[in-house]
């Protein structure tokens, strides 16, 4: 009896690995099928590969750019193997386009913001640039899944560290409660919290536009 039990215990991880392999193959198959349709459609799409900690901008099966994910925390498990559409982008401070001032005409509201005391190093340009993009924001996919993006600043001070810690502890308390709330309302709550380097976080906000398609490989 003990002998049989020992054999079973030895073989259990093998069964688990085989099941994982099948699940992985299944997920890969679904993703590849969805990607093939996107690649054929000649549009730009995004592949968020969470196990590989990277986000790829792709078109026609070619990777145009790749962003690293520094850290990841996941909550819930949405359906995989489908092409999502970016439904909404929300940030605390969303970038605003500026209106061109036409000579000889005055706008009701000043189009150009008041110039701050800090002088820029280069020429003053009235434009929406990557530096205007937010570093902390939420991307909402069409099924309600949230991709929360935080930027990691290289020269983060004490306050930033404290804020990060509070956010982390807040996550462990708030997400379960939000999950219960959604469950009671008959839905599911899925969220991925990704930390990206500062410039890459801004770049993702810049490029990942509302209506863009994306594929997500979940962990």
């Amino acid at each position, binding site marked *: 009896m003990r002998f049989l039990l020992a054999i079973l215990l030895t073989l259990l991880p093998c069964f688990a690995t085989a099941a994982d392999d099948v699940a992985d193959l299944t*997920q890969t198959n679904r993703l590849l099928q969805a990607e093939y349709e996107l690649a054929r459609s000649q549009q730009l799409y995004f592949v968020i590969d969470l196990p590989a900690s990277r986000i790829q*901008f792709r078109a026609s099966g070619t990777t145009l750019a790749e962003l690293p994910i520094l850290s990841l925390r996941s909550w819930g498990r949405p359906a995989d193997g489908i092409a999502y559409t970016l439904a909404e982008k929300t940030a605390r401070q969303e970038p605003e386009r500026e209106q061109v001032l036409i000579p000889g005409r005055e706008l009701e509201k000043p189009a150009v913001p008041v110039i701050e005391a800090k002088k820029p190093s280069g020429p003053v*340009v009235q434009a929406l640039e990557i530096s205007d993009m937010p570093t902390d924001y939420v991307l909402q996919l069409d099924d309600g899944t949230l991709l929360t993006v935080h930027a990691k600043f290289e020269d983060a001070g004490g306050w930033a560290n404290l804020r990060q810690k509070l956010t982390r502890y807040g996550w462990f308390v708030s997400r379960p409660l939000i999950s219960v709330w959604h469950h009671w309302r008959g839905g599911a709550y899925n969220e991925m919290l990704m930390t990206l380097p500062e410039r890459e976080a801004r770049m993702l906000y810049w490029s990942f536009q509302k209506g863009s398609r994306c594929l997500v490989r979940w962990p």
Partner: protein
Amino acid sequence: MNIDGKHWTGSRIVGLQGQGPSPEKPPRRWLKWVLWGSLALPVVIFIGLIGYGWYLGHRHGDATAEVAVQDDKGRPVPPDKLATANAKLQKKIAALAPKGQFVVIDTANNRVYLREGERALREMVASCGSGNVLVDPVGGRTWTFDTPRGQFQVRSKVKDPIWIKPDWAFIEEGEPIPAKSSARAEANVMGDYALGIGNGYFLHGTLYKRLLGRNVSHGCVRLGDEDIEFLYKTAVLGTKVMIF
């Protein structure tokens, strides 16, 4: 509610003074339990909710990954065939990639790359769309000066291009829109070469070389003299241009 010894002694003294003995009050333990219970119950509920929420957030039972891929007849595909199918799909996707050289434009970083497969043959500094908005004060028309994103191809190649100024160029300067189309032509503003990618968008040279690397254009992609000449000579008609 003080039930220490002194108080009780005092009560007896009062009783002896003629007001009758006060009944001995039992210690209200139940009240203590109610108090503790009313404090503990919300904590227990809170912990319970957190625990239930954790369960909901980490159960993977309804993940579709666990549903097997099925063949045409609705039978689950065995793992070995799944691996072969995945390899075939990867090949099919790879076959869609552009053949030969193609152009990639990074509008966020104002960079243009000439690529062949995964290899970048040349990196160029550019100026892409400013993202500004122009409103026609008379007609109410609106233009947003973004560089379009997506897949395009080189549709035209022009040496010494002449800019046919669109309406917005006059409105932006506060000038009247000319009736004659000949009045729209302006030479020497697009550099020596231009590559058209459709819908009026071009990759072209610029007079404002100091602003290369910044988002200042009206949607076209401006390049330095050497870079636009290189692209003009390298890219053939039909070369893929991918903008993100």
